[in-house]
């Protein structure tokens, strides 16, 4: 049985972990490589590095971080943030990344997903979708009342945001996910902007709607605050993996603790190298 994955995410700016990581036995809280090692030891199933470095010149630093991480942590590594060209992808893969997450570049030019998937394989290309709920109010008129709008039909959908959540697009998140699947994306990293940072739990409705619609795996992100949230999103939400950042960094939850809990709830998770549940 394929195990559900638990994935810590590290935001990296100019080679440093944003806000740091609060491990007891860490020497340098801002060093992504050291954080990666600790997560490796804890049995994280994968690691996501999100490069939020603004300037293009500083991007070489990320390559170095990936290189140094791949030298010490023998676990799957996904890198995202600011990837625009096939060369960017190739460099990161050569440095030791396994999978590449694309967001803005995909929304700006969907063909990029196709080109990347054809060159490096679908399994290598993750499309990150930052989604936020919007309501369209479509008014309707009734004859004889002139132009007065007397009723609203609220329609809700999730809008795709790019540029790290700063810029809205015209894309509907669900349709966009379907589209990138067709273009060859191998996985969706789905972040609910409404839930991100709230610790109120993952957006189950969004995650479930998407997982019903597409046939590639989904990493759910945004909103994890306690053990139950992971259970919910991996079952009710239909997610294949659950991602969290600060919850793990600040040790509100440890990965072994979370996996023990999920295992006890009957979810297949990997506990170290050996099978723990079935």
């Amino acid at each position: 049985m394929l195990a559900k994955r638990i994935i810590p995410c590290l935001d990296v700016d100019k080679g440093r972990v944003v806000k740091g990581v609060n491990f007891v036995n860490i020497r340098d809280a801002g060093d992504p490589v050291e954080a990666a090692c600790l997560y490796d030891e804890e049995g994280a199933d994968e690691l996501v590095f999100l490069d939020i470095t603004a300037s293009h010149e500083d991007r070489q630093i990320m390559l170095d971080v990936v290189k140094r991480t791949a030298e010490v942590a023998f676990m799957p590594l996904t890198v995202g943030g600011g990837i625009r060209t096939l060369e960017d992808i190739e460099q990161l893969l050569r440095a030791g990344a396994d999978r590449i997450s694309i967001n803005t570049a995909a929304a700006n030019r969907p063909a990029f997903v196709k080109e990347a998937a054809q060159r490096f394989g679908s399994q290598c290309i993750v499309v990150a979708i930052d989604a936020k709920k919007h309501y369209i109010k479509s008014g309707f008129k009734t004859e004889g009342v002139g132009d007065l709008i007397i009723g609203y039909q609220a329609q809700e959908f999730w809008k795709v945001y790019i540029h790290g959540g700063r810029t809205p697009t015209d894309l509907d998140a669900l349709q966009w996910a379907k589209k990138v699947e067709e273009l060859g994306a191998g996985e969706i990293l789905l972040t609910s902007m409404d839930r991100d940072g709230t610790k109120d739990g993952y957006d189950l409705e969004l995650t479930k709607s998407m997982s019903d619609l597409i046939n590639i795996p989904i990493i759910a992100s945004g909103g994890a605050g306690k053990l139950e949230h992971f259970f919910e999103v991996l079952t009710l939400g239909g997610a294949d993996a659950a991602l969290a950042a600060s919850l793990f960094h600040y040790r509100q939850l440890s990965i072994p603790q979370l996996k023990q809990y999920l295992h006890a709830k009957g979810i297949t998770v990997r506990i170290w190298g050996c099978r723990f549940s079935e």
Partner: protein
Amino acid sequence: MHKLPTIKGYELVNFSICEICGYIDCTGRKFSEVGKMAPIAIIDYGMGNLRSVQKAIEKLGGTTIITNSPLKIITASAVILPGVGAFKDAMAQLKKLQLDTIIHRVIESGKPFLGICLGMQLLFNKSYEYGECEGLNILYGDVRKFPETLKIPHIGWNTIQSTEYGTRIPLLEGIPDNSYFYFVHSYYVNPEDDSVIMAMTDYGIKFTSMVCKENVYGCQFHPEKSQTMGLRLLENFVNVHL
């Protein structure tokens, strides 16, 4: 008597020359490395994550060389063919670099050979990824896509169950049955001959996750990304030829 072929800087041992094409088949080592074990060659054909494989082997005390030079591959003590990406592109790259014949030579010479992920799939007759494409024809069978009823790609940690043949191979020594390994692929190999199947994995359908035929090993998962158990498997491979 044959005139001994010389290749600058290398001492050749156990060589033979093909009478028809004059091809030199040999094992050998650099003069500077005489007396030392030749490195393990990791074939670089522009596909995939070579660095992790290299670092994993080095962590285990092996020496490696990432290369696409036929000579360096032929003179290596063992060869690893890694790879992620599409089958067709990979075959095209191998042919372009004339590495397909070199791989055949290496395998015929009896050196330990390990194909990882796409590197294993390439050993088979053909794949249907982006249209039918012929492989290296070293193992009989084809490479197929998972049925559409499953989520594709198969990404993440899954367990392997060794077959009756698998329990006998050195690569799985010290690795308990049902150990987790990291997979990331959409296609799987379908060997014609059951006796090459060393381990199976269950992803809705049961597929071959490890093969072995004499000195040729292949695994669908990524040992270099599978933490402790993966490193153990690579350590076993490094030790195969000692």
